[in-house]
């Protein structure tokens, strides 16, 4: 009897707690008395990026009285998991800003709303390059739109490199020439993480291949290029343990003449090494200049208030607002009109980025992103540390890719 009372009490308490946890408001499309619809937007921006987004949302909320957007900050690194979890109990937000390369992943997992109909009617839909639009699609349906973009390019030290290399052969030669006892010519991340993959994938694509043909001759050559430079000492053998940020530090300290990173590096470079004489160039090519597009996209969560959500998206992506937003973030836009603004076209550095972004794509790996990422950086690490030959490394990678795609 006494035990029964005791356990009863515990169960009541537990139920109370669980109820309290699950009864939180369901992503709030509840209307206020004035008829204003309130929608929720999740993002992971901090610092300046957060301020800029807040400014835009305030401006939007004040510009009309039908929809009110409320911002919810979810830390970077948490957002992916939180979004998936929200999908399991129907608590997805109306709007969410995720990494541009994660849209397909979330779309395939079922947490996003199909917005094809809205995008087809949208007057600016032809302003986004096909490659970039494609990484927002699953089975021809659109699940998000880019709000800002960036790309990895080559930063070079003008005091060490006179003319930036444009082909792989030139890269090898320039890197060897710029190498001496103190500095190495080239350093890109070959880290045991997504950062290694992101740095090397442009070389694979430049060879006319992609992840599904990593074991081809092109794939071999792309990896052999890095391996040769490591063997010759013109690329630091520490590359396998350098994140992109580590490589940036080596570049700004003058320890390496060339590195691969994105526009986020520019403010740091200007602040930490104001005297460094640097420039940017496209990543040296085999067949064509390409890079990997990064940035953020906006999507609707499953069960969102689509009408209100689209109202905000279309306002946010009006070319003028979009341009101002990209400008304020220090990143790059995704719409043709904004690309053509003199602000981007007349600046030698920004122009390089714009050209790269316009001719590049993202991963487009969907729900296989995690696996493919790991397959690529594992192959890079094995080949560069000498644990396997280039041939063995890419062949093993090809087998693993085939297994997943089966």
């Amino acid at each position, binding site marked *: 009897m006494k035990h029964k009372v*005791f356990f009863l009490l515990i169960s009541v308490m537990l139920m109370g*707690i669980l109820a309290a946890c699950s009864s939180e408001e369901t992503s709030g499309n509840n209307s206020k008395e004035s008829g204003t619809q309130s929608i929720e937007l999740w993002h992971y921006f901090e610092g300046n990026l957060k301020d800029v987004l807040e400014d835009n949302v305030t401006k939007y909320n004040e510009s009309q009285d039908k929809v009110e957007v409320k911002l919810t900050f979810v830390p970077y690194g948490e957002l992916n998991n939180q979004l998936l979890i929200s999908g399991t109990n129907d608590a997805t937000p109306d709007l969410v800003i995720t990494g541009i390369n994660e849209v397909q*992943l979330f779309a395939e997992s079922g947490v996003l709303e199909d917005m094809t109909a809205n995008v087809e009617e949208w007057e600016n839909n032809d302003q986004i390059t096909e490659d970039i639009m494609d990484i927002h699609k699953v089975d021809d349906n659109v699940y998000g739109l880019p709000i800002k973009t960036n790309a990895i390019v080559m930063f070079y030290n003008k005091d060490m490199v006179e003319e930036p290399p444009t082909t792989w052969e030139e890269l090898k030669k320039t890197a060897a020439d710029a190498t001496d006892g103190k500095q190495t010519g080239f350093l890109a991340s070959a880290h*045991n*993480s997504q950062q290694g993959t992101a740095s090397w994938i442009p070389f694979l694509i430049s060879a006319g291949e992609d992840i599904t043909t990593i074991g081809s001759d092109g794939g071999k050559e792309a990896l052999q290029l890095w391996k040769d430079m490591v063997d010759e000492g013109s690329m630091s*053998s520490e590359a396998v343990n350098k994140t992109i940020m580590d490589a940036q530090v080596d570049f700004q300290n003058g320890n390496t003449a060339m590195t691969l990173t994105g526009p986020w590096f520019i403010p740091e470079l200007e602040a930490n090494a104001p005297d460094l004489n640097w420039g940017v160039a496209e990543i040296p090519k085999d067949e064509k200049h390409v890079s990997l597009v990064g940035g953020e996209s906006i999507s609707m969560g499953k069960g969102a208030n689509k009408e209100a959500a689209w109202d905000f998206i279309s306002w946010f992506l009006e070319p003028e607002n979009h341009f101002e937003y990209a400008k304020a973030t220090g990143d790059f836009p995704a719409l043709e009109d904004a690309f053509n603004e003199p602000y981007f076209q007349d600046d030698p550095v920004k122009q390089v980025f714009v050209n790269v972004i316009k001719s590049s794509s993202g991963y487009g790996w969907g729900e296989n992103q995690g696996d493919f990422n790991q397959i690529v950086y594992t192959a890079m*690490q094995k080949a*560069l540390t000498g*644990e396997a030959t280039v041939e063995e490394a890419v062949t093993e990678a090809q087998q693993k890719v085939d297994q997943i795609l089966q």
Partner: protein
Amino acid sequence: MKKRFENYSFVLPAIVFLMIFLLYPFAFNIYLSFRDINIGNLVQGDSPFIGLENYKTILSEPLFYKSLTQTVIFTFFTLVVSTSIGFLLASYFNKAFPGNKWMRSIMLLGWMTPIIIVGTIFKWMLDGKYGIVNNMLVNIGLMNSPINWLSDIDTALFAVTVTNIWLSIPFSMIILLSGLQGIPTYVYEPATIDGASRWQKFRYITLPLMTPTISILLILGLIYTFKVFDVIYIMTAGGPANSTQVVSYLAYELSFNLFRFGEGAALSNLALFIIAFFAILYVRKVQKESVVH
């Protein structure tokens, strides 16, 4: 009856806490490990029961054995070296000398520093090209050419182990020091009168009296070191070419990079069973000892 109920109500908060924050996640992790749950079916919620399939996948994966071996090596050397050095330092600080407290506090600074900072600094110090470690070793003539400590598959595990040893020493020292301070001086006095040497005093008095403290330290260290994550995450991310891959980091990668939640859960459970095995051994041992006394 009423009184009894009142008494129970005092332990209720603790029980509720245990159930929500420990038992539930623990049970849920076991549940997950028997299901095929990944990014493709997480949201739909139709994760099928697949029995021991996740465990089979893990156990047939060569990388699991590689990471397990590396975890064991990492744990073994961390424990042996940090306990030995910790003991030496504890004996040193057990003596009264000017500046003792002051120096002991400085020792603890290392322990109080967040691992993200320690890991990053060690990563810089061990850098093959610009690291201070290579610079010093080459300059004093111990090495002819620099070693890429963290990016060479033969030295990376050694380098992260050394870092972890550095991190573990202060904790070992504090625990052992408290043990040493618990030994009354009068037990040494008869030995001194009987003409026992320093070594004999250490071997036949200090060491036996310290055994319980050392056991506690080793078991705590084992549990803490076996599930190492942060040092690896910061310094090498398991690389190069998986040469510093350890069990807990592998489980993290499976769950949160590859979104194979079932396999990740299975691997964490395997690690848990291994640790639990040692913990039970230890608890048995302690119980036996207390019976004897």
